[in-house]
């Protein structure tokens, strides 16, 4: 792409800032607009934002520099990201990616000389049930095969606009395999709001309390308690935020809810707004789900027309509430509510300190309820049917049902809705998993279960989960899994605190050392100690869980490491000594005996 002149950039930024009413809280959204227009965010655009919004230039640069989908140099006209989750890795992603790189003659991460295309990696894009998958200019292409890539390469070489690509390329399946109360009978639009208005907010909150509903993102805080805290905090404004930053590798249930049950989610948010007294809601949609933006906007527009959003909802003179969609820009950490709120305010997604908690000081320091997509969908159903039916399902401490996103080595990957208390073994049987070596529950940050633990139950009191279930059979090398996760956390650490910023890189290097056959027992000791430090000293949940996969596998699958260790050596250099001479060999042209180690 040719250099764009400064005046054009300034005009572009002027238009964008104007359309967002010069609100600095919309900075991430405005940066998206620049990136979509220019393929990157030029320095001049940073200057213009700073000038127009009266923000420090370094602040704007710092925000742009935080999100992995924002670039400070031009990208290709077709900007491609391969999803690099371990599941897709095992589905052949590395080979497919190499194939396309060679076919299009592109170097990874660098735009081709003619500016036509860039190919890069990105973290899990929520398609592991239909991978390998990629994003092309933000839009999802699933079930990649070599044949499909041949076609894509052709479309790129002929500069065919995305709108003319075969629509089936962009089809995303729901793959719902097992339905229960949430995914069962559809709910008449607006019913939850009507029933709530008839029942009253106090009584509706009481039903949610009675249901025992807990946050479905994984942490499991009681929903009714959270809403009551927020409602009871004195403030002139309150907010409802739906966390759709579904970034945990291997999970995709929120994507399905947003694709096929969006009304239910928005209905739950509206019920919450009425109960806590909020007038503005946000859906924080992860950038990887860009393809859902327009359909969701359409649902919101329809609901406004139906009188289910906006001023005077259902003719109620003092009930106004609307929902804005905020598009994330590639930052797993923003799935943590304390980072999500920062991002929503147009800042770097660095998790805030707590206390205070968002229920008392959240978005713009006002009381804010942040709940997962699934939680709001369930809340809408509970608002209609009451809490008893829900509470009758599940276990003592985990009521109702849970959506599981199942992928990996099984016959039927997809979405499964089970009552809480279902055992891992039952889950494996349901999806047709055979000869299972390990199950990674809750994504990279979660727990790795060995076959001995398959009778454990999915429930807050046993194996708590946000819903990601990744299955690995006995043919799989678990160190590949560990390695993939270790790289993931290096990429996703926000860099705020020492243990996570540095520890994730140290762990990645040590995993690589073991993986390449240079590890020693001392290295494993270091890995254990660093894991322990991450867990106990990190600032937020990301760092505290970023070493779980290593600690778990070291404990439960020690042979995975041991078989690769150098048995005789008790010490191996931290780096490859001979490669460290290569640069000097090149410069001096030396190839004598002494020029090697």
């Amino acid at each position: 792409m040719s250099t764009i002149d400064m005046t054009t950039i300034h005009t572009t930024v002027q238009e964008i800032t104007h359309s967002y009413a010069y609100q600095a809280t919309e900075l991430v959204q405005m940066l998206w607009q620049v990136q979509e227009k220019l393929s990157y965010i030029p320095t001049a655009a940073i200057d213009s934002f700073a000038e127009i919004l009266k923000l420090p230039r370094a602040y704007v640069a710092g925000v742009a520099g935080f999100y992995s989908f924002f670039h400070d140099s031009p990208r290709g006209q077709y900007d491609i990201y391969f999803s690099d989750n371990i599941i897709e890795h095992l589905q052949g992603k590395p080979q497919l990616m190499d194939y396309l790189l060679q076919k299009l003659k592109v170097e990874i991460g660098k735009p081709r000389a003619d500016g036509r295309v860039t190919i890069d990696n990105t973290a899990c894009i929520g398609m592991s049930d239909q991978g390998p998958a990629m994003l092309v200019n933000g839009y999802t292409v699933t079930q990649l095969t070599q044949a499909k890539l041949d076609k894509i390469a052709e479309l790129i070489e002929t500069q065919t606009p995305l709108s003319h690509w075969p629509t089936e390329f962009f089809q995303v399946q729901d793959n719902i395999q097992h339905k229960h109360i949430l995914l069962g009978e559809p709910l008449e639009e607006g019913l939850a709001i009507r029933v709530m208005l008839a029942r009253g907010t106090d009584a509706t909150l009481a039903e949610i309390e009675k249901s025992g509903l807990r946050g479905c993102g994984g942490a499991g805080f009681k929903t009714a308690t959270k809403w009551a805290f927020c409602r009871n905090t004195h403030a002139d404004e309150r907010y409802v935020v739906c966390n759709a930053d579904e970034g945990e590798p291997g999970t995709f249930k929120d994507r399905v809810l947003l694709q096929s049950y969006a009304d239910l989610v928005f209905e739950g948010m509206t019920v919450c707004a009425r109960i806590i007294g909020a007038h503005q809601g946000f859906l924080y949609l992860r950038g990887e789900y860009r393809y859902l933006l327009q359909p969701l906007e359409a649902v919101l527009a329809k609901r406004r027309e139906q009188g289910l959003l906006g001023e005077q909802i259902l003719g109620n003179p003092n009930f106004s509430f609307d929902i804005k969609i905020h598009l994330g820009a590639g930052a797993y950490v923003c799935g943590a509510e304390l980072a999500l709120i920062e991002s929503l305010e147009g800042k770097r997604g660095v998790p805030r300190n707590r206390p205070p908690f968002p229920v008392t000081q959240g978005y713009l320091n006002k009381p804010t309820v942040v709940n997962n997509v699934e939680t709001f969908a369930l809340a809408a159903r509970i608002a209609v049917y009451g809490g008893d039916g829900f509470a009758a399902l599940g276990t003592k401490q985990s009521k109702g049902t849970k959506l599981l996103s199942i992928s990996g080595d099984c016959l039927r990957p997809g979405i499964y809705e089970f009552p809480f208390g279902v055992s891992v073994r039952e889950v494996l049987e349901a999806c047709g998993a055979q000869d299972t070596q390990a199950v990674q529950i809750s994504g990279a940050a979660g727990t790795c279960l060995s076959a001995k633990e398959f009778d454990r139950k999915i429930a807050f009191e046993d194996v708590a989960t946000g819903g990601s279930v990744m299955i690995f059979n006995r043919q799989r090398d678990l160190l590949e899994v560990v390695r993939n996760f270790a790289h993931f956390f290096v990429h996703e650490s926000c860099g705020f605190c020492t243990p996570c910023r540095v520890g994730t890189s140290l762990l990645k290097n040590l995993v690589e050392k073991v993986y390449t056959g240079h590890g020693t027992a001392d290295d494993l000791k270091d890995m254990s100690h660093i894991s322990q430090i991450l867990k106990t000293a990190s600032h937020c949940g990301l760092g505290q869980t970023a070493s779980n996969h290593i600690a778990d596998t070291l404990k439960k699958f020690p042979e995975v490491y041991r078989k690769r260790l150098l048995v005789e050596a008790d010490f191996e250099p931290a780096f490859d000594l001979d490669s460290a001479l290569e640069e000097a060999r090149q410069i001096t042209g030396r190839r004598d005996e002494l020029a090697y180690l």
Partner: protein
Amino acid sequence: MQPEEQTITLDGQKIPFQPGQTIMDAALAAKIYIPHLCYHPEFKPHGSCRLCTVMVNGRYESACTMPAAAGQEILNNTKELNENRRALTQMLFVEGNHICPGCPKTGNCQLQAVAYYVGMLSSHYQHFYPYRDLDPSHPDYVIDFNRCILCELCVRASRDVDKKNIFAISGRGIKAHLIINSPSGKLEDTDFAVGDKAAFVCPVGAILRKRTRYTTPIGERLYDQQSIRIVGDSQQLHAGATKYGRK
């Protein structure tokens, strides 16, 4: 009626605290040292260096961000916590380029002082040796990004006290780095000045006053003879100098 004095228990010792104080505030008031780098009593707690991680009623918390509450049982000076602190210090050493013999801040550097306190005799891990810049453009100050530990004290001081916003953080993860608020990215193109609070808060040798490097001989500096546990933070000694720095 005088309210009863509230106390927390730190390593078995009861110490009083005022409402609104963090564990760190209360400990320092009681002259108990909890290792720290990003904490500074004049700024909003940050909690990024994690050296002050203590155990509060069985949970790990950073002492600088955790509000003191009556009856808390806190462990600070334990073998496990100090070993973890040593490892965190080693992480900071390998992450940047900290060549003490070549640094004018040596002897007055808090990173070094904390490392002495936790008994760090080697950096243990593999060094990253990142390529980082040096910005000598300003007439009175030099910024050496090699030594930045991302404590954000300069960011906070410039934003909250000087109202200049000269520093910010960009990048993410291990690529997170300090940036300067000017189109050139150079300090000379900002209104950074002698006497700015941000000029006095750097715990390491990343922000240095020019021509004052060797006014005190090595060996006679703050941490050369006595532990940081006894003599305290270097920036607070410098804080007094702001009085003379301003017009």
